[in-house]
């Protein structure tokens, strides 16, 4: 009698369990990229709460299986394998570019759709057999470089200099920025490199100043981006200084202080959501996200990185609904994953916090810089909307 009861219970439980849609999430909640990964993880915790309250997607419960990769590629790959074995329908993540690149072969082999939260264009370009399965939400360097050059052209700047990290981040920016600048008739008069750990960039800065450029772009991220800017100011450089969206966090303002006043940078629209004109497509979605996040984690706690995670879910949710009409994950998981991938690629004009997504067979980023980037100026230790490109 008792045995029957247990067997029945197990059957009932497994029937319920089959109803649950598992979505795998990999983020860097610890390690050097933690300041990006923590808001991403928080966003999924918040989503989980919302979904538990409202009853999931198309009548099915959704469960996020969130794993931490400790900012480490090996760990990210291991997590991805584990998630695939757990039978997730899709994988969102991870925070950093190298780890995301490491995950691509795994999801391609298992034929699981993946939405990365990392920046580099290499993650989704070119769309080959492996990247067929991969999408991403953050703006690429190329997209942001386009915004910067458009802004420089609009200001009548003729000559520019570049100084950036001597790693993948800085090299990526150098490549895209210099190509874009030359294409728009700007003259790149100097291209310098420095290391994140450098203690002095006087040599590079002197070389830049000697060439007298109208503007300087600093291709660096986080607080190490302060050093060249301070050195430029100390050596009396009076032209415009541009930074990349890699500095759009409060730590940059804290360490930079008055040295970074007046800096121009491209950013996702959510950074200055409340200052956007009401016609800007992302404004309403971004404010909604900020309000929800701050209600849960405190005023001023939101960051642009968590919003990339939110965007990934905004893309995945309607795709899940459509895919559920075509296939049943409980019966044929592989067919459902394939259907889900097709439905993600079929996303059109989806308004998210960082822009408007329209994927296609060739474009798995799906953003135009006019919707996905705004120019921001640092003024009084705050981000101030300078202009939009629409």
């Amino acid at each position, binding site marked *: 009698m008792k045995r029957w009861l247990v067997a029945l219970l197990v059957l009932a439980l497994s029937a319920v369990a089959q109803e649950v849609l598992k979505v795998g999430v990999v983020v860097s909640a610890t390690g050097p990229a933690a300041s990006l990964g923590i808001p991403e993880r928080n966003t999924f915790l918040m989503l989980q709460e919302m979904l538990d309250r409202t009853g999931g997607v198309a009548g099915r419960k959704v469960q996020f299986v969130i794993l931490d990769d400790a900012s480490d590629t090996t760990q990210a790959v291991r997590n991805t394998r584990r998630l695939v074995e757990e039978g997730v329908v899709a994988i969102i993540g991870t925070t950093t570019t190298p780890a995301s690149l490491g995950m691509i072969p795994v999801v391609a082999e298992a034929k699981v759709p993946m939405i990365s939260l990392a920046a580099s264009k290499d993650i989704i370009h070119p769309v080959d057999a492996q990247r067929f399965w991969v999408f991403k939400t953050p703006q690429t360097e190329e997209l942001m470089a386009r915004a910067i050059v458009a802004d420089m052209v609009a200001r009548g700047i003729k000559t520019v200099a570049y100084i950036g990290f001597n790693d993948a981040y800085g090299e990526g920016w150098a490549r895209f920025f210099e190509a874009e600048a030359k294409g728009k008739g700007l003259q790149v008069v100097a291209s310098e490199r420095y290391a994140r750990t450098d203690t*002095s960039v006087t*040599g590079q800065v002197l070389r830049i100043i000697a060439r007298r450029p109208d503007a300087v772009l600093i291709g660096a991220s986080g607080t190490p981006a302060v050093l060249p800017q301070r050195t430029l100011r100390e050596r009396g450089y009076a032209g415009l200084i541009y930074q990349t969206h890699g500095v759009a966090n409060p730590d940059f303002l804290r360490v930079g*202080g008055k040295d970074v006043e007046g800096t121009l940078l491209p950013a996702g629209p959510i950074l200055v959501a409340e200052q956007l004109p009401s016609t800007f497509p992302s404004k309403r979605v971004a404010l909604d996200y900020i309000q929800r996040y701050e209600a849960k984690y405190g005023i001023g706690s939101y960051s642009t990185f968590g919003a990339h995670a939110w965007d990934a879910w905004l893309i995945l949710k309607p795709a899940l609904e459509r895919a559920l009409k075509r296939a049943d994950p409980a019966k044929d998981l592989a067919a459902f994953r394939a259907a889900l991938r097709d439905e993600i690629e079929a996303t059109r004009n989806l308004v998210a916090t960082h822009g408007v997504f329209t994927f296609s067979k060739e474009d798995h980023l799906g953003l135009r810089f006019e919707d996905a980037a705004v120019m921001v100026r640092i003024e009084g230790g705050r981000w101030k909307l300078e202009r939009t490109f629409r």
Partner: protein
Amino acid sequence: MDATILSFLLLDGLQNGVVYGLLALSLVLVFAVTRVILVPIGELLMFAPLSLVWLLEGKLPGTLWLALALGGAWALMARGRGGLLPLLGGVGLFLLFLLAKEAPPLAYVAAVLLVVYLGVATYRVFFQPMRGATVLSFLIMAVGLHVAYQGLGLVFFGPEQFRPAPFLSGEVMVGLSWQGVLVLLFAASSLAGLYLFFRFSLFGKALLAAAENRLGARLSGIGPEEAGMVAFSIASLLAALSGLLLAPLINAAYFMGFMLGLKGFVAAILGGLASYPVAFLGALLVGLFESFTSFYASAYKEALVFLLLVPALFYQSLRARTVEE
């Protein structure tokens, strides 16, 4: 290249060079006395300004618990009456930190003493028990400690940079801030201090003797343990003070130590890990070389700086003679 740029580059190279120089001196001193290549010296340098930032914000830094834990291990290993010194030191350090949370000027003293205590405890706990081991074993231990301390730095202080306020703000002239002058003055006075210490004090002479011939020194009553502790405390004191003086100029972060230490090491190698004046001059050379390569070929700077090692090592290998064991 005109005169202005030249003078800026020279000043910049000098300012960086003297810091590498102080680290190189510490490395040579520690190596001569204990045969340890003190790879984690960069981490000791990094702990000082970051602990200071934490104290100034009224928080106790994680480095304090690390130091107390090592102090505890030291006391256990020493046992008996020898254990009294680390225990008293640890308690004193803890009380000083509680006081320093409220009093900013004390925080500077606390940060320096913390690093010195940590340095000596590191020697006592990790290196002293393996005395008599080969230089290679020491090196393995040192590299392990460097990785561990850097990882702990990330845990204690997070991935971002911090910038303590300078002691002296403003510029003397274009290209040289008062803080930079302070760094140069500190380097000059430490050089003079070390010279006087080794030349005229009994302790300094004993250290030199221990460095010259360890067996002979022991025969004449100089304990290699005390010599090692003194060497480590001098090295950590120099590292801590350099860190505090440098941090306002370069921003402090958990990853800052390694490159500084490595360049100090290149300078020390140029001096053959034996000669103080050559090591210091080597450090100035590294600083100047770095400043000029960053002007002419910034993309290859690090590679070129470490390429400096090649002729130095070549020279050392030519000069080396086989020693009969």
